[in-house]
């Protein structure tokens, strides 16, 4: 249906970023799941990065309060040494989330760069990149991860993030390549070629903006994978277990035999729920983002 073009609405002049955020929330608010996801993600990020600045660390051992049930003093109960579980949740988020963000960032960068190169150049570059990708895809990831982690024993979250990223890029690369291949055939890309706008313009201005939703959603999904992978290798005790992390909490819970105590239910549930709820928030946010990037739904 065609409508007569309405004159542009006069709007309050807000600084660009502020109106962009308002616009983002406006579109996201149409999808309750996406909004819930956003709140969840913001909550956990605040919990992991801001709460430790306010809440003092409590790692005093208290043998009188081992595996106590939630109470006013210990809202999520205590662990095998009587330490507060909530406090550990607060302090255990930062490393696991930072690592996940970095891993997602590295893998997305690798996938975009090489996926776009393969699709735009075609020919031998494409064949070579695809061959490497396929080989990487066929290796059982968790097994490889365990082997690498056992050999390199990554000590910093950056090195751990790089290892995770090296395992995650292949699937995304194939998808990016397919996207670029289909965009390449689109009329507006052909028009840009005809107008001699140059390869950089075509890739960064014509194609990538049309893949934003795709990239953002894949970034978030890559974060969820990175969190599961961390949980897995930490649970297996394959990385030096210094510091605090939800995954390390699970490792200790298991190693200290918490599984065999009925009283330890709340101790176990703490990190499990933290991981599960954060993952759920990420997935919900990803599904809401689909709408945000659709220009049709913008005003």
């Amino acid at each position, binding site marked *: *249906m*065609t*409508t*007569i073009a309405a004159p542009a609405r006069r709007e309050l002049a807000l600084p660009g970023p502020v109106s962009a955020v308002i616009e983002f929330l406006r579109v996201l608010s149409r999808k309750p799941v996406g909004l819930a996801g956003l709140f969840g993600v913001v909550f956990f990020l605040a919990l992991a990065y801001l709460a430790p600045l306010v809440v003092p660390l409590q790692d005093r051992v208290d043998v009188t309060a081992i595996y106590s049930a939630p109470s006013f003093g210990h809202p999520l109960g205590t662990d095998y040494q009587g330490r507060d579980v909530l406090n550990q949740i607060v302090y255990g988020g930062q490393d696991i989330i930072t690592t996940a963000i970095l891993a997602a960032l590295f893998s997305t960068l690798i996938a975009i760069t090489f996926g776009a190169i393969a699709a735009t150049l075609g020919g031998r570059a494409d064949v070579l990149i695809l061959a490497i990708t396929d080989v990487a895809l066929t290796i059982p990831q968790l097994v490889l991860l365990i082997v690498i982690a056992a050999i390199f024993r990554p000590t910093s979250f950056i090195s751990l993030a790089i290892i995770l990223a090296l395992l995650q890029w292949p699937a995304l690369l194939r998808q990016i390549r397919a996207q670029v291949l289909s965009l390449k055939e689109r009329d507006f890309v052909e028009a840009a070629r005809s107008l001699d706008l140059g390869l950089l313009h075509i890739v960064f201005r014509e194609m990538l903006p049309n893949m934003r939703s795709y990239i953002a959603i894949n970034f978030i999904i890559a974060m969820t994978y990175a969190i599961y992978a961390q949980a897995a290798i930490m649970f297996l005790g394959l990385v030096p277990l210094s510091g605090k992390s939800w995954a390390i909490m699970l490792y200790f819970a298991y190693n200290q035999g918490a599984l065999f105590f009925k009283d330890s239910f709340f101790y176990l549930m703490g990190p499990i729920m933290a991981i599960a709820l954060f993952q759920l928030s990420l997935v919900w946010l990803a599904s809401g983002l689909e709408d945000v990037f659709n220009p049709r739904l913008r005003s």
Partner: protein
Amino acid sequence: MPILSVRGLSIEYRTRRGPIHAVRDVSFDLEQGETLAIIGESGSGKTTLAVGLVRLSPRSARITGGQIVYDSGRERVAVLELDSEELRRFRWAECAMVFQAALSAFNPVITIWEHFFDTGRAHGMHDRHRVHDRARELLHLVHLDPDRILSAYAHELSGGMRQRVLIAMALLLDPRIVILDEPTTALDILTQRAIIDLLRELRRKLHFATIFISHDLSMAAELADRMLTMYAGRIVERAGVDDLFYRPRHPYSIGLLRAVPRVSGALGSVASIPGSPPDLIRLPRGCTYYPRCPFHVDDCRESDPPLLPVDTPGHEAACIRWEAVAARIGSAAKPVAEKLA
């Protein structure tokens, strides 16, 4: 006695911005055996109307008023009051619809014979042999080779063959009304010609009435007995085919006629209609064509005029300026574009 009689039919689509008034207060009769063409731009409501007649509208559509009465010869049926079982019988046995023969009109994994059989079975023809005989007979009628077609899959057929198959399937239960929605769009010229000739031949042999929806005026000129022009959901002109093409009395009909160049004869004064159709959610007051109309006067803004009888019999136009239009266009049997040249 008309075979189908529509009175005051209104159909809306619900959207986030509010209801789209896609069909507004439409009334017309379809006589036994005649061909009625509905023309208009996209968004004029012609497809919504056609689909609404057999109640195949999408979920977001709602019939907000009016009635549709089908006269089967034995009894009068209020189509809007049929339950789903009665509606299914009505849809194929009395009133069949032929869509554009896109590949998507077929199930890609079953043969044409299975399409025929499924259609027959869904409408109470359970006898395999009877359906088979009827399918062969109909395929002969649409000039296809039954042996080859029945065992084929849709993708093995050309566009023209698929359109013939759809027409044959529509005739399976001997309907008395056939609704054709853009039956030749996307077909090549020579194929299109063959389908037009086929439709004319079938109509002569089988005597069904046809409602024919197209944005292609030349198809209407070729097949129609009577014409309806739709604009912004309403019927704005109703006329016999010659009257509409040579003596249109609504400025929108004139606009449509002038917008289509011809291959034979003089080109005449060809022109597009300026502006664009109104927003069907927020309709303007007065005549909806007013902003685009070269004949408008201030009074046109006051109210949306009803269909008024004009200077030729059996011809109505929803325009208070029809006399000015008649004075400009005259009554000679010549195309409008030539008269305005």
